[in-house]
């Protein structure tokens, strides 16, 4: 590595680390995070994301601990825990955990093969968090034949999968060598140790003070409704019709992907060059997200054929940008499409997926969960849990996440792949495609109880990955 590129990569590092320090500024959980936090019933209704990072060598343990210590100092949220008000009159709040101990969150284990590591990672993921501590856990697996693996388990309230990958990309270094005098987080004035009763009371006080305003707004809305009953009725009916379509019109679940218990997670990983996948996406007129969905569907098609039980379509959970479709906005909605299993040609499958995903944009009720979250959060937590359950679970969730664009290092070990294994909220499998430089890292979490022949599923997915790679 030439000195100039090394210095440019380190100035880039400083910029990223600055961003990381600014990350996680808000102290309250957003309505959506609150809903997921309160409705969590791990692991069946889980909000845990697990990241498996392949490293080219085992990093020096002391240096690795020191780097993690530094990272938690930079990103304050990693040392904070969630404080719930005694009654749900306010959103939960982040507060510094006075008992924070890195030793509780970070440890190392020895394994002899990658399979063993993935099985151990699934067990780590299945164990529930201590909800009174910072919501993350890291395990460095050593003893692998070609290096090491770092497994990071993180709660959705702390970061969603996208945020997790962003955070990791930000914390990693652009060079193998140690960077002295790394920036440290400003000693923020931590929110005064939040007290559950105080939180509830202040939430209630806010509610009371905003009550007259809310009453006025409601009265005005009712007045408008009374003046134009037809228009209001028509628009309500249209919203209801859209909601009904979103909840009922996806394909029926495949019998080959049941019964699901959600309690036996199995982690699979695949890697493929990105360019050929992007080419298939372009030929089908779609994006990388569409191609990822088509790829998973292709694997499931092969599996259904092998089981001699092909169905036409299965319900697939996808993420839809609520901003313009083709740019990566920050507002997303989760929705279920009918994913075609009947199409053999990958390009045609991408085009079909593209059509399904774009069709969601005509549904005015797409944002319903976002809209309902603040209201649901005021109810006892089982209401939230059942709200999430009403959104019928698809057979598979598929997600695409942008990872680091270039080579990255963790405490002197080169990152060779980054796999995200998402939770299984009722689905038989969750697949995440992370772009790492010019490689697609595909992590699949499978509910082993729902799949009769897990080895066959792994083979089928691998065959489809090969088919997409040309």
């Amino acid at each position, binding site marked *: 590595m030439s000195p100039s590129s090394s210095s440019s990569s380190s100035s880039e590092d400083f910029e990223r680390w600055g961003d990381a320090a600014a990350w996680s500024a808000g102290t309250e959980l957003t309505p959506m995070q609150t809903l997921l936090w309160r409705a969590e019933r791990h692991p069946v209704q889980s909000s845990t994301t697990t990241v498996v990072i392949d490293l080219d060598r085992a990093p020096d343990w002391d240096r690795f601990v020191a780097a993690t210590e530094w990272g938690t100092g930079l990103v304050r949220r990693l040392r904070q825990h969630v404080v719930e008000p005694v009654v749900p009159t306010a959103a939960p709040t982040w507060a510094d955990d006075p008992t924070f101990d890195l030793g509780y969150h970070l440890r190392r284990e020895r394994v002899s093969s990658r399979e063993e590591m993935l099985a151990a990672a699934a067990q780590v993921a299945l164990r529930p968090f201590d909800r009174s501590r910072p919501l993350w856990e890291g395990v460095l697996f050593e003893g692998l034949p070609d290096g090491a693996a770092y497994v990071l388990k993180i709660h959705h309230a702390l970061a969603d999968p996208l945020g997790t990958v962003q955070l990791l990309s930000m914390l990693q270094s652009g060079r193998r060598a140690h960077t002295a005098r790394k920036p440290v987080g400003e000693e923020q004035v931590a929110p005064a140790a939040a007290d559950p009763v105080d939180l509830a009371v202040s939430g209630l006080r806010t509610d009371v003070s905003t009550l007259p305003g809310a009453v006025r707004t409601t009265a005005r809305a009712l007045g408008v409704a009374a003046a134009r009953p037809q228009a209001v009725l028509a628009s309500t*009916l*249209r919203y*209801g*019709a*859209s*909601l*009904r*379509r979103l909840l*009922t*019109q996806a394909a029926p679940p495949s019998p080959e992907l049941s019964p699901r218990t959600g309690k036996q997670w199995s982690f699979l990983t695949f890697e493929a060059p990105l360019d050929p996948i992007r080419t298939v996406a372009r030929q089908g*007129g779609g994006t990388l997200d569409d191609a990822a969905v088509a790829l998973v569907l292709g694997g499931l098609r092969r599996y259904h054929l092998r089981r001699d039980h092909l169905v036409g379509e299965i319900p697939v959970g996808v993420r839809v940008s609520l*901003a*313009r*479709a*083709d740019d990566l906005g920050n507002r997303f909605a989760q929705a279920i499409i*009918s994913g*075609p299993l009947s*199409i053999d040609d990958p390009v*045609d499958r991408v*085009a*079909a997926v*593209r*059509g*399904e995903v*774009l*069709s969601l*944009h*005509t*549904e*005015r009720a797409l944002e319903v969960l976002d809209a309902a979250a603040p209201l649901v959060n005021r109810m006892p937590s089982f209401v939230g849990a059942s709200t999430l359950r009403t959104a019928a679970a698809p057979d598979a969730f598929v997600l695409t996440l942008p990872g680091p664009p270039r080579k990255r290092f963790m405490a002197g070990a080169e990152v060779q792949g980054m796999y995200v294994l998402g939770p299984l909220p009722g689905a038989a499998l969750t697949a995440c495609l992370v772009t790492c430089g010019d490689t697609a890292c595909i992590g699949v979490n499978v509910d082993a109880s729902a799949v009769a022949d897990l080895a066959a599923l792994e083979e089928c997915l691998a065959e489809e990955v090969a088919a997409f790679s040309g």
Partner: protein
Amino acid sequence: MSGLSTAVQEAIEAIEAGPQGPSVGAFFDLDGTLVAGYTAATFYGDRLKGRDVSPAEFLRTVVTAVDGELGGDPTRIAHVAFSAMRGESEEAFADLGERLFRSKIAGTIRRESRALVMAHQRAGHTVAVASAATKYQIAPVARDLGVEHLVCTQLVVGDGQFTGATDGPMLWGRHKASGVRAFAREHGVDLAESYAYGNGYEDVAFLSSVGHPTALNPHRDLRAAAARLGWPVLDLSDPVGGSLVAAGRTLAALATMNAGVGAGLAWGAARGNLTEGRNAAVRLATRLPMALAGVSVDVLNEERLWTHRPAIFVANHQSALDIPVLGRLLDRDFTIVAKKEARWDPRAMVGSVVIDPAWIDRSDSESARATLDGVVERIRSGTSLMIFPEGTRSATPVLGPFRKGAFHLAAQAGVPVVPIVLRNTGELMRRNSLVLNPGVVDVCVLEPETDWSTDDMSERIAALHAKFEETLARWPS
């Protein structure tokens, strides 16, 4: 003026500037895109009128339709309709399609949609109608637009009768999209370069399968999606339906026309000059009533109406409005040749008193020839003749074949032919309609053609027909 909105003109220019040839596809939805409204509703209305529908079937249809609107399966309504057709003869249904096309659906084809179709045809693109409707609804429209390919729902026919089932899925939503993709594979069409036009919320998948989607007069949910997806939206004007006001104005115009004829003739009689009286009557009987009905005329190359008299004026024919419009343009010293049956048409009667048409008995060729000999004499003595060479009114602006009679007369009388292209009279007064809608009639007088002889007549007629078509396709400005 071309009569197309700026947005449509820009769309057409983009098509002309883009890639040409059959590897580019142009896919048009039918209901709400090519035609205003729903052709299925027209068919169902006809069934209702014919009392082919039992109360139970009617109730089932309404409930299914409402459920489809409220988030249920919107294609079920069609399956209810298809199963109700079980046992019906395919041939009779195809005939019904033709009949409904002529009487109702032809008038609902949007002019600007037609212009877009023609722009794609000029570019040599592979044009297809892609619709969930059946071919009995689509075929007459497609034929009128000169579109060869249909991508549509197929009904199963056994022994000439419908079985009530569909062959494959109904081409709605995702199935229309996959139908279009399959068509593209079969016909070597490059979808990334292709165009699609649709209006329904279910058309997103269909539109997204091409590189150039356009939401055309979109449903409100498609409009929202198009805004989010950055797709162009085109809002085309719909064919005008007859309003009460327009009907009232038409009545007033008819009354004025009669009064005008009477006044003109009376004036002529008083002055002892019948010809002058007739000319005055024509003027009074055309200008005033058209002004009352709110119809004005925009003429290109007006001077050509006067440079070659006496002459044979030939014009295309779509509407009963053509006759007063031409009467107003020709103004004086002309007559028409008309079929004998039209003699007692109330709309023609007033005119017939004034311009003394040559009535032709089509069933008797001997007497027809004699009448035409008389006509040649009248032309030579200075009276111009106006003829619609298509012979009959077309249901749509599509030009029919030209008959030779007018050109034989020109050869015999040794006078020139002056071609007059009328663009939108059919929109202001639809075929079979008694109501005249206000608007501007676009007229273009082409170069007069002299020295007609039987030797090269067929070629010259074909060339003239092509000129009419070209003028209608690209209105000169």
